[in-house]
């Protein structure tokens, strides 16, 4: 058996490793650290249909994750989906930026893709993105395809 000091040291190391593993799980594996940029700002966009978009889905520009969806609700005046998302403070985007909902891969999760515009004025917190493109809903696309196919046959 060890001396008392060495015993206490090894047990201490064990507890530290265990807590470090917990911290790793909380910070790196889960989304706890996900997006908590204090300088971040929130932008709103309305979509006709958001498909399967979920809260915490990533917001990408040119394939780079620059924010995440923070809230999804239904706009009761226009009956459109109102999506609020948080963007990192270091990303300044023109006001005529457009938003689209894409799917990563065939069955992957859905995300918001931003396409920068050319305006000199930058988006501020609470601003609306006016140009938006809805999610592609597979059933709709299939329906359109079948419809056009049937129309073409005549």
């Amino acid at each position: 058996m060890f001396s008392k000091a060495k015993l206490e040291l090894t047990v201490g190391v064990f507890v530290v490793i265990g807590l470090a593993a917990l911290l790793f799980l909380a910070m790196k594996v889960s989304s706890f650290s996900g997006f908590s940029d204090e300088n971040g700002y929130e932008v709103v966009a309305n979509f006709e249909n958001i498909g399967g978009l979920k809260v915490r889905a990533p917001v990408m520009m040119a394939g780079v994750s620059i924010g995440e969806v923070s809230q999804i609700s239904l706009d009761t005046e226009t009956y459109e989906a109102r999506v609020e998302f948080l963007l990192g403070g270091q990303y300044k985007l023109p006001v005529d930026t457009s938003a689209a909902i894409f799917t990563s891969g065939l069955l992957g999760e859905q995300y918001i893709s931003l396409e920068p515009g050319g305006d000199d004025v930058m988006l501020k917190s609470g601003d609306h993105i006016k140009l938006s493109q809805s999610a592609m809903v597979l059933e709709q696309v299939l329906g359109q395809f079948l419809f056009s196919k049937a129309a073409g046959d005549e």
Partner: protein
Amino acid sequence: MSGLIDAIAGLGRRVVNSIMRMGRGNIFLFHTLMSTGIIFKEFSLLVKQMYSVGVLSIQIIAVSGLTVGMVLSLQGYNTLVDFGAEQSLGQMVALSLVREMGPVLTALLFAGRAGSALTAEIGLMKVTEQLPAMEIMAVDPYRKVIAPRFYAGVISMPLLAAIFSAIGVFGGYLVGVELLGVDAGGFWSQMQSQVGLYEDIVNGVIKSIVFGIVVTWIAVFEGFDAAPTTEGVSRATTRTVVNSAFAVLGLDFILTALMFGGA
């Protein structure tokens, strides 16, 4: 005719015996919990048990975690790649580890590695009449022997489960990203966006705490309740591993249904 009566009587005796054991087990747990104060008064007792219960289990937990993570990644990749969804590999590996594999496999390994040792140790103390000797010297065995071991197990188990899951995720990363060439960014970001802190990580930790309590309780109780013979100790050690496995798997179903059961 008398054979039949004997069989029925034997059955009844077994039922009565197991109910009595259940009662003894709960009284035992109550006594242990009443002796909690000792771990604050004599902290070194707890530290010593943490060493033999926790530190000595790290090796098997780390190696198992690594291999389980690697196998999950390998198997998951083969399935996911058919759907072009290999980006979800990180999410699959992390969720299965954090929710199920981590707590359950750690508890099973813990029962085999530390639980059986606890039972054998306490059982042998009983065989060599150390426990009665303590009582004669007015030393409460619950305080000196049982409580430190019980709490060492309860504290060690969640830490070991966290180590298992963390190393498992790392093993999954090694195979998925380094060996099979899944995009590292997708691996981590899918994992982070789909694994929730409260619904997954905290629930996994709660599971491992519950398993820690149950497995250590069974282990120390079986040792304490063992027949004071060589055969009795060996039977108690077997019972610890078997009963712990049943308890862990049964409780896991109940906890999973409560936590992730939807509805």
